[in-house]
């Protein structure tokens, strides 16, 4: 051991690297194994370990190759990797530099998926004109999914948030395995036959292509197509597309999203309806005010007596209706004040006091303070208190005359 030759670490590493790099087997090799320690680096490269029960090989796949993959690398996935084996000198480790990767055993499933998709598409099962619109407000929602697990809970959670009094009917089925598609088909048929709901959510959480397979089966697809009741599909994650999604009347990206789609937000609907009520009230009040003004102007033109008389009647009618409207509005405002936060400020314009500023008066029975709505409610001799803008006038009825009748005004008062 006198004429020792010493090599540097780099030299040895270089030597090993060149041995591996020139090996014809290692320079283009296919390796099967299970992925673990998958790390998507911010650079876009992915680092992973390939393993079987007895050994591991480190690996890397560069960004440009990663971008070409039709799936995302995940721990536990069984894959076939193609690439070359070389040494990464800074860490002294050999690893596989992967340029392509395929999920194991899924090739057949992808092919079956594409074949069935093409077949059903040709038959018209995905025809947009056949899609049924789910009701805006479903009275009963059927959910076809597993009775255990997060999916049904997520759906119930979202529904409770949007619409506290919802009616849900769960039809429990297996959502993976051989019996699943038969159970799904039967559930859809029973819900239709017995008319159990007015919309159906078909849901399942995320999973591998094998686990989602029942939703890619012809039996499932045809039973969705045959459903008279609209079907919303919500299978897997946002990126998973199944045949069921193509046939369904609507596809939701996730089960929670399906719940959002199927049930409207109750508060928003209440708001919409009360907004329409407000608009009705404003429009009618506005019109009555304008009509009264018009009549007043006309009568001031000193028209002949009979016409003047009629115009007076008309003006009285306007006044009368305006009072009715104000009463009605006040009642409605009261009704909704509890319901809608922030509505009250908008309605200040309807406050009877503001109306009194414009010259209208309100008469009440002095004895109990209730508002006088009809001449029928008073008799000569009764004491009435009249509210004006700046105070009250106490008066005694000296006579009365009924000017108009008709169901219409009854209807305005007792409209409900």
């Amino acid at each position, binding site marked *: 051991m006198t004429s020792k030759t010493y090599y540097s670490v780099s030299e040895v590493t270089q030597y090993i690297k060149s041995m591996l790099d020139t090996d014809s087997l290692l320079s283009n090799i296919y390796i099967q194994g299970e992925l673990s320690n998958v790390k998507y680096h911010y650079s876009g490269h992915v680092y992973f370990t390939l393993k079987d029960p007895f050994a591991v090989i480190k690996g890397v796949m560069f960004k440009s190759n990663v971008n070409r993959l039709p799936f995302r690398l995940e721990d536990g996935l069984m894959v076939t990797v193609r690439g070359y084996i070389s040494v990464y000198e800074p860490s002294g480790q050999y690893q596989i530099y992967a340029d392509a990767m395929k999920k194991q055993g899924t090739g057949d499933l992808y092919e079956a998926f594409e074949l069935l998709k093409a077949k059903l598409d040709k038959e018209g099962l995905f025809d947009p004109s056949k899609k049924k619109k789910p*009701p805006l407000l479903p009275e009963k929602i059927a959910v076809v999914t597993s009775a255990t697990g997060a999916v049904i809970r997520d759906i119930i959670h979202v529904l409770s948030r949007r619409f506290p009094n919802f009616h849900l009917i769960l039809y429990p089925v297996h959502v993976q395995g051989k019996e699943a598609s038969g159970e799904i088909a039967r559930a859809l048929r029973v819900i239709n036959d017995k008319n159990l709901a007015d919309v159906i959510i078909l849901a399942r959480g995320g999973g591998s292509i094998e686990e989602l397979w029942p939703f890619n089966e012809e039996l499932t697809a045809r039973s969705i197509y045959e459903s008279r009741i609209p079907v919303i599909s919500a299978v897997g994650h946002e990126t998973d597309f199944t045949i069921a999604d193509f046939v369904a009347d609507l596809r939701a990206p996730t089960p929670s999203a399906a719940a959002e789609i199927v049930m409207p937000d109750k508060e928003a609907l209440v708001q919409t309806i009360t907004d329409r009520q407000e608009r009705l009230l404003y429009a009618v009040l506005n019109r009555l005010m304008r009509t009264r003004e018009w009549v007043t102007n006309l009568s001031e033109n000193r028209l002949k007596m009979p016409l003047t008389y009629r115009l007076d009647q008309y003006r009285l009618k306007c006044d009368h209706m305006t009072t009715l409207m104000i009463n009605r509005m006040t009642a409605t405002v009261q009704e909704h004040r509890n319901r809608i936060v922030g509505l009250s400020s908008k309605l200040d314009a309807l406050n009877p006091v503001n109306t009194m500023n414009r010259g209208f008066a309100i008469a009440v029975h002095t004895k109990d303070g209730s508002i006088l709505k009809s001449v029928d409610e008073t008799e000569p001799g009764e004491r009435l208190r009249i509210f004006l803008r700046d105070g009250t006038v106490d008066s005694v009825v000296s006579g009365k005359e009924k000017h108009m009748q008709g169901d219409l005004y009854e209807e305005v008062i007792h409209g*409900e």
Partner: protein
Amino acid sequence: MNNEKSFEENMQELDQIVKNIESGKLNLEDMLKEFSKGMKLSKYLLKMLDDIDKKIEMIVENNQNEIKLTDFEV
């Protein structure tokens, strides 16, 4: 009030009534008739929202393939 109509149809009808009245083209009597109809309809719509049962049920099938509904505990 037509109970056969869906919430959506009733909602569309209410919108139409609001438009009719806001257009100002109706005579006074027709306007008040429409108004009354609109108020009734809006109350009915609010009632429809509250009339939905608060229920979570599950379908149970027995050996004879008979269907029953039971309460579902979350």
